[in-house]
């Protein structure tokens, strides 16, 4: 191996953002034709390293070499010219443009959009990745969007393909399809750098792994000879304890009941809810699985009261009709809510923690007297949440944006749990959060349920749902499948539902999304 020149090697890469060192003397070698995993927690520096390899960022120190010769990557153009392609985690697509236009934007030649469209159709059918060049991106599903990114890399016959968390948005079946495509690309001699935190996947398809922690390379290993637990330990730096999950002793009274809820989306590109029914009892965790963009945002908004139902009786909390009640009325009825987006929805980035505590608690926590804010009470509440949920922060009352993702998530989940709500609706509780914070939050959700709260978790992460949920339902195209006991449920079955199989009208999965 060492005699052959590496396809790409990074040596001593350091990248600083102000005082923060995102990459600290990182070495990475990618051999020709290998699938190389880049493993690490959120915030370990994977994205920064990948942006450097793709020419989007320039390292503060260190060198890159391509086939043994040093290169300077000043822009993604140069990277693409060498034969480096990239599939972004948060896709780099333009919603209002067509598929062909999107692809043309990433090609360096002077082909007309029509010529690109013709070649695109050819390449996509050759790889079995069907795409309609004339469709606008906003009409496509998440899986199809990823397909655009992959096909657009393939059209440049890449030597190195970088994929950033490609499976986090896919169903298990779509993931299998992706793996087949990757195997084929690799058989054509292309190397793949595979960024993920899903260890089982990495063990299956990668032959080498570089593990990052706090910006440094901790280890390089062959993941096929490691266990998921040993990989996790290298990533996190300590033993990872799965959430303690005792079976429910007995389900309590019905807390949340939704009957035949249909609601048009307020976003013209959104997914409308169609006849959704569900119920959550005190003491249990109901998980709602589904691929992103299938109505999760709309469901959360309907349950929280940010968007009101047409009929008050479609949503009842403890038997009381709540469909016409706004979010603060529902909070007073015992509801608590944690939306998916931390910055901008759950918290205002430039407001302080105490102000963000006020935002969620002004109706229920006694922070307001005669229209005036009791600043001391909000500060006291912040310090309680901080203590109970181990939120790490610098100053006493920092702005929300100054906290790391994990710490801010602990804060926004903690400020609801500490209220001991009767009902908690939480969306993506551990999205983009480090392992320590994730396990703390998951345990807190289970403990809350066992203490008599009805907990509803919307998540795209199936592993998470199987870890904490007692029953699981799947949302697809705005419809919800009946919930089933998690213990007796197979991942494959959930995956099929996530892909639309088994839904009445959605049985044949078309490209159309919420037409």
């Amino acid at each position, binding site marked *: 191996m060492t005699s052959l020149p590496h396809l790409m090697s990074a040596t001593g890469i350091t990248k600083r*953002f*102000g005082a923060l060192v995102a990459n600290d003397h990182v070495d990475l070698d990618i051999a020709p034709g290998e699938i190389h995993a880049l493993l690490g927690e959120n915030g370990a520096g994977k994205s920064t390293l990948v942006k450097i390899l793709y020419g989007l960022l*320039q390292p503060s120190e260190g060198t890159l070499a391509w086939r043994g010769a040093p290169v300077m990557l*000043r*822009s993604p*153009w140069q990277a693409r010219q060498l034969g480096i392609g990239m599939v972004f985690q948060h896709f780099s697509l333009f919603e209002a443009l067509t598929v062909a236009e999107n692809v043309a934007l990433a090609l360096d030649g002077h082909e007309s959009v029509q010529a690109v469209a013709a070649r695109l159709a050819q390449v996509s059918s050759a790889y079995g990745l069907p795409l309609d060049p004339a469709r606008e991106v906003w009409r496509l599903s998440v899986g199809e969007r990823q397909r655009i990114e992959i096909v657009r890399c393939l059209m440049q016959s890449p030597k190195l393909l970088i994929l950033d968390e490609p499976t986090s948005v896919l169903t298990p079946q779509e993931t299998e399809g992706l793996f087949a495509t990757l195997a084929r690309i690799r058989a054509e001699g292309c190397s793949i750098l595979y960024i993920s935190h899903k260890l089982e996947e990495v063990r299956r398809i990668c032959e080498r792994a570089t593990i990052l922690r706090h910006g440094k390379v901790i280890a390089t290993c062959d993941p096929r000879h490691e266990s998921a637990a040993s990989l996790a330990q290298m990533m996190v730096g300590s033993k990872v304890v799965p959430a303690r999950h005792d079976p429910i002793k007995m389900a309590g009274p019905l807390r949340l009941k939704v009957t035949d809820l249909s609601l048009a989306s307020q976003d013209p590109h959104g997914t409308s809810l169609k006849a959704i029914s569900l119920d959550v009892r005190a003491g249990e965790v109901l998980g709602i699985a589904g691929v992103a963009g299938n109505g999760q945002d709309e469901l959360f908004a309907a349950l*929280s*009261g*940010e968007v009101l139902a047409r009929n008050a009786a479609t949503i009842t909390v403890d038997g009381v009709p709540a469909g016409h009640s*706004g*979010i*603060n009325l529902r*909070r007073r009825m015992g509801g608590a*809510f944690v*939306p998916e*987006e931390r910055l*901008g*929805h*759950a*918290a*205002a*980035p*430039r*407001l302080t923690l105490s*102000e*963000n505590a*006020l*935002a*969620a608690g*002004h*109706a229920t926590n006694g922070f*307001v007297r005669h*229209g*005036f*804010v009791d600043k001391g009470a909000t500060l006291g509440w912040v310090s309680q949440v901080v203590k109970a949920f181990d939120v790490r922060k610098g*100053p006493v009352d*920092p*702005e929300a*944006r*100054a906290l790391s993702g994990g710490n801010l998530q602990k804060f926004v989940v903690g400020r609801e749990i500490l209220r001991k709500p009767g009902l908690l609706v939480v969306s993506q509780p551990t999205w983009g959060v480090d392992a320590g914070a994730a396990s703390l939050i998951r345990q807190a959700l289970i403990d809350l349920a066992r203490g008599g709260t009805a907990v509803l978790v919307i998540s795209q992460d199936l592993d998470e749902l199987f870890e904490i949920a007692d029953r699981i339902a799947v949302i697809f195209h705005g419809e919800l499948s009946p919930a089933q006991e998690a213990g007796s449920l197979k991942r494959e079955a959930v995956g099929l539902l996530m892909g639309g199989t088994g839904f009445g009208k959605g049985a044949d999965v078309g490209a159309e999304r919420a037409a």
Partner: protein
Amino acid sequence: MIRIALEKREDTSPWMSLLSPLVAVALTLVSGAVMFAAMGIDPLKGLGVYFLSPVSDGWALQELAVKATPLVLISVGLSLCYLSNNWNIGAEGQFVTGAICGSWVALASHGAVSGTPYAHLVFPVMMLAAMVGGAAFALIPAVLKTRFSASEILTSLMLVYVAELLLDWLVRGPWRDPKGFNFPQTVMFGPEAQAFRLMADGRVNIGSVIAIIVVVMAGVLMARSLKGFEIRLVGEAPRAARFAGFDDKRLTWAVFAISGALAGLAGIIEVSGTMGQLQPSISPGYGFTAIIVAFLGRLNPVGCLIAGIFLAITFIGGENAQIALRLPLDVTRVFQGMLLFYVLACDAVLNWRISLVSAKGASA
């Protein structure tokens, strides 16, 4: 090639947000000196006329208070709008509509109530009418925004022209003083309809006191009340505001109504306090200058008070310069525009750590 690189600051230090408007003022003065030199005027003399003569004696200070009053009143209202991401730039029109509605009360009661106990009610009712009129006029763009998502920037600005034409029609047509030798103006208001002067032979009227009361009330509202928090949260993060259960549409109406009412109040105070009658043109652009005041005052009521006084200086300085230096009045607007440029540039320093880096090759 050198380019400017920006890096997000994690926290904004409070002393810098105080310093930034001062730096902006200093930069404006320097630029003004350069401009005077370019026009062949001794820079020190030019700046002296502009910025020192308006504060040189008691009479000048009174004039300053009179000019600052509408600026402060309007800018406090605009601050509430801008904080909540509602771009009301039609305050000039709301000022005019308020003046019209208030004047209607003065004209309708003209000669009918003087000497009766009702005379004392005339001015308060005028103020009320002006506030209602200004608020109603401001609610037009607000409702068009929330109901049809029509840009409030464009609609509120278009309505300025409409209000000015309405005023023009009234003073040339139905409201013209029949004994006024055909001049386009209304009769002089009766004494009961003129704003109460604080000093018998002075220029300062009750309006300046009202402006200070408004500043204090708005300051308390913004700093302490839940409503003030709501205004900031809606502007800062609209989705987070909805999550907090605040109704952003209703808030849009509220801030537009408040700022329209304050602009209307400024309008009637200006007309009844300094002119005593309606004329085709009643404002040297207070409604637009107040936009600058709001930003220079960092969208803070107390800041608006200080900034309003500063911009009033430029108005009086401009009038003085017209006489002493034969400079067109528009130089004032140049100063005001420049000042806003510098304020915005200095605000960038608050939000970003700025450094110059040399960049070779292609990078964005």
